């Protein structure tokens, strides 16, 4: 049986068929929601063990877990031969990926200082304003929301604004006492938001030129680990001092690595959302991570036990607003007219970087994924990563905190259902292209 054609043959350049476009956008929206669930849950392992551990050690170990997963998951899902093929087609994206990873690492470190100075409650919504910057860059640089019509503008901007207000309420409910200089903390949180919001420029650059998110994240990880290693060495006082802190925290390192691995699953979905619905929709949807983070806090770690009625009102109100905002963004997917403007931006990239137009258009249409066979290198990467994670697990201490196991099982089940639904939909529609 032959596959239905997905490109309409018109005068150059061809368009993606409307039915195919809708199917890709449905998958993108699903990926955005799955990203929120997994990114939100990634904080859970660190909550078990973070007391008494240096923030930079936490960040460094999470990034180590991220690095291991960012190389082994793509090796298993599409094979490193596919990464090589993508690099052959668009070698410039290696540099863009490394730059994006550096931005992520600096932003993540800024959030640590922000939380220390103003507490999570104020810092979280400040840096989650990154979605508004993502919408701005998407519009200015990549033609997103052009020719979109008032209703879709209202859906995306109004939805992002609702999510921001919901985020403020949720953060107020999960308050942590501020201990430092408010001015420095606010600057850190806003700075992190600007860095993360700008990090979506490389994302969109890569996906307009057709690169598979699974290939892009491998270079992203190099920038991420390189930058966080440099920052950890500088801010802990040298390699020797960093090593000593790692040895002292030996029993909890596994939980931090596990958090990093869970974060990667969410981030891969976030990357696919950015590819198929753009950064102006994908980023607000994946920012529902705050809602999931709070669910873990309340249900598993009983963080609101004995809290006042005001706090419960903030949680319910914030959750409803965030869900409504996410819903508005989700139903405001790009029209054919808007998508033709995305294609103009893709054509600009094709010409600038002398890319193969057929490759770019096919990849934009979600074609050409996972055609390579796995090689010994793929199995070696997956094996080494697994061995490192198992080694950390063998030295892990059982956390002293007592989470609510039933709620944890329910949340994990919900996340696995989202993972399965989104993963299968992504595979069927794009073969992870």
């Amino acid at each position, binding site marked *: 049986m032959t596959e239905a054609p997905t490109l309409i043959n018109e005068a150059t350049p061809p368009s993606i068929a409307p039915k195919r476009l809708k199917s890709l956008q449905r998958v993108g929206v699903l990926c955005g929601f799955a990203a929120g669930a997994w990114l939100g849950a990634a904080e859970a392992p660190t909550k078990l063990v973070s007391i008494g551990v240096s923030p930079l050690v936490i960040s460094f170990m999470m990034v180590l877990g991220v690095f291991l997963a960012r190389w082994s998951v793509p090796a298993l899902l599409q094979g490193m031969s596919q990464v090589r093929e993508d690099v052959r087609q668009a070698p410039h994206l290696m540099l863009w990926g490394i730059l994006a990873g550096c*931005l992520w690492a600096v932003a993540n470190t*800024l959030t640590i200082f922000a939380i220390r100075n103003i507490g999570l409650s104020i810092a979280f919504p400040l840096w989650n304003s990154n979605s508004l910057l993502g919408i701005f860059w998407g519009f200015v640089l990549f033609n997103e929301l052009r020719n979109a019509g008032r209703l879709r503008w209202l859906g995306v901007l109004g939805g992002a604004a609702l999510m921001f207000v919901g985020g403020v309420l949720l953060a107020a409910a999960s308050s942590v006492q501020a201990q430092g200089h408010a001015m*420095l903390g606010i600057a850190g949180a806003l*700075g992190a938001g600007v860095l993360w919001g*700008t990090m979506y*420029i490389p994302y969109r650059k890569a996906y307009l030129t057709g690169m598979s998110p699974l290939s892009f994240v491998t270079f992203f990880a190099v920038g991420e680990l390189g930058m966080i290693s440099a920052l950890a060495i500088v801010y802990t006082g040298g390699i020797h001092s960093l090593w000593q802190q790692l040895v002292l925290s030996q029993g909890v390192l596994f939980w931090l690595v596990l958090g990093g691995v869970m974060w990667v699953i969410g981030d891969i979905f976030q990357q696919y959302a950015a590819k198929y619905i753009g950064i102006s929709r994908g980023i607000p949807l994946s920012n529902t991570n705050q809602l999931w983070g709070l669910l873990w806090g309340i249900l598993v770690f009983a963080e609101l036990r004995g809290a006042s009625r005001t706090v419960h009102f903030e949680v319910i109100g914030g959750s409803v607003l965030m869900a409504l905002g996410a819903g508005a963004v989700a139903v405001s997917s790009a029209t054919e007219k808007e998508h033709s403007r995305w294609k103009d931006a893709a054509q600009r990239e094709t*010409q600038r*970087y002398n890319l193969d137009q057929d490759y770019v258009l096919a990849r934009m249409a979600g074609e050409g994924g996972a055609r390579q066979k796995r090689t010994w290198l793929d199995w070696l990467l997956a094996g080494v990563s697994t061995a490192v994670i198992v080694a950390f697990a063998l030295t892990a201490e059982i956390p002293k905190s007592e989470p609510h196991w039933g709620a944890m099982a329910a949340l994990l089940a919900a996340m696995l259902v989202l993972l399965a639904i989104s993963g299968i939909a992504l595979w069927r529609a794009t073969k992870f292209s």
Partner: protein
Amino acid sequence: MNKEHASQDRWLLGTVLGDIHFWIPLAVLLGGLVLLKWISR
């Protein structure tokens, strides 16, 4: 002109550096490092 330039630049480094979009995240990254230095005093 871009196309001719890109075809002579195997790893496209020169083309990336000539892309104004590249300088926006790079400038933000440098600004972030300065900010980090300041708030970590």
